[in-house]
């Protein structure tokens, strides 16, 4: 009885030493920390940041969006507000410049296509389900990899995606051109 208990306790003490060996082994192994602001994680591929507009193939300041507002309707949290106007006469020129190459079903020449005026994402309400991007008939939405958002007011995250797109096009275009 006593012998058994002593043996058990000795084994227990041994297990404690084994535990210390494990932590000791880990102590000498290299760190796995990503030193964040100086390094970033290897792969953000596939991660959903907030959505962003995909620039048009031809004109990087324009979006592929056709203002069908599918995304507005599917969004569970109604974070997307979209404003589009039906263009007057001059719409044809732009269409000719842009949309023709896209294999879209509803791009007949006659119909006046609404033009995107503003595309505002209230990121504060988004739950990143990704259904807007999935449902988009033209593939005009994608996920940004901007995961470093933080700010002093919540208005900072009401993002005007169209303006953002244009800004990006400019900054990207500047060094190149």
């Amino acid at each position, binding site marked *: 009885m006593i012998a058994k208990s002593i043996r058990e306790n000795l084994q227990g003490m041994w297990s404690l030493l084994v535990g210390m060996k494990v932590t000791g082994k880990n102590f000498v192994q290299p760190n796995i920390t990503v030193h964040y602001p100086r390094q970033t994680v290897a792969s953000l591929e596939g991660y959903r940041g907030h959505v962003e507009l995909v620039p048009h193939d031809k004109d990087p300041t324009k979006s592929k969006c056709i203002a069908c507002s599918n995304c507005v309707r599917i969004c569970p949290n109604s974070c997307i507000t979209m404003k589009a106007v039906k263009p007057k006469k001059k719409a044809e020129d732009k269409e000719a410049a842009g949309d023709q190459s896209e294999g879209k079903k509803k791009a007949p020449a006659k119909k006046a296509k609404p033009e995107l005026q503003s595309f505002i994402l209230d990121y504060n309400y988004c739950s990143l389900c990704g259904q807007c991007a999935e449902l988009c008939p033209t593939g005009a939405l994608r996920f940004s990899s901007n995961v470093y958002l*933080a700010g002093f007011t919540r208005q900072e995250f009401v993002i005007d995606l169209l303006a953002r797109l244009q800004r990006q096009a400019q900054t990207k275009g500047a060094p190149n051109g």
Partner: protein
Amino acid sequence: MAQENQGLTFPFADTTTDEPIVDIAPVRKILDICRAMSLWPMTFGLACCAIEMMGFGMARFDSARFGAEVFRPSPRQSDLMIVAGTISRKMAPLVVRLYEQMPGPKWVIAMGNCAISGGPFVYKDQYGIVEGVDTIIPVDVYVPGCPPRPEGLLEGLFHVQKKITGKRWWPLPQTAEAN
């Protein structure tokens, strides 16, 4: 607190703290830097974001590098309240109380969309949640996302440091987009 619970509007939390005993500009500056470099968060998780908050303290992202290592369970010893998750109306008075229990100077990060605005749980006629923690306590930094990545929270921490000292101490990550 219980009475306040009945009404649906919460009086703004009592944010008064004692005046500092010594208030000389250079001393204050040094103290501010020390405060910025040793922001001890409170172990206070509400929902999903709390797991990412744990990730923020764990080996891969390691908030300890910036002095935000010591997660204190008691609000008395913490400087930073990370509101990580949805605040239900039942919880709101307690969040206010926790905030008031922290001794000044203190800072609040609203982490995740739920804490910022109610996030995915806001719909017409919703009855259960507080739409934004900034309606009940003053918030210093917002970190959006659902849930934000630990990098986002680290950025939030840097923003708090920037707010305290008026300077960003660490470089911008290379992949951060010029927004």
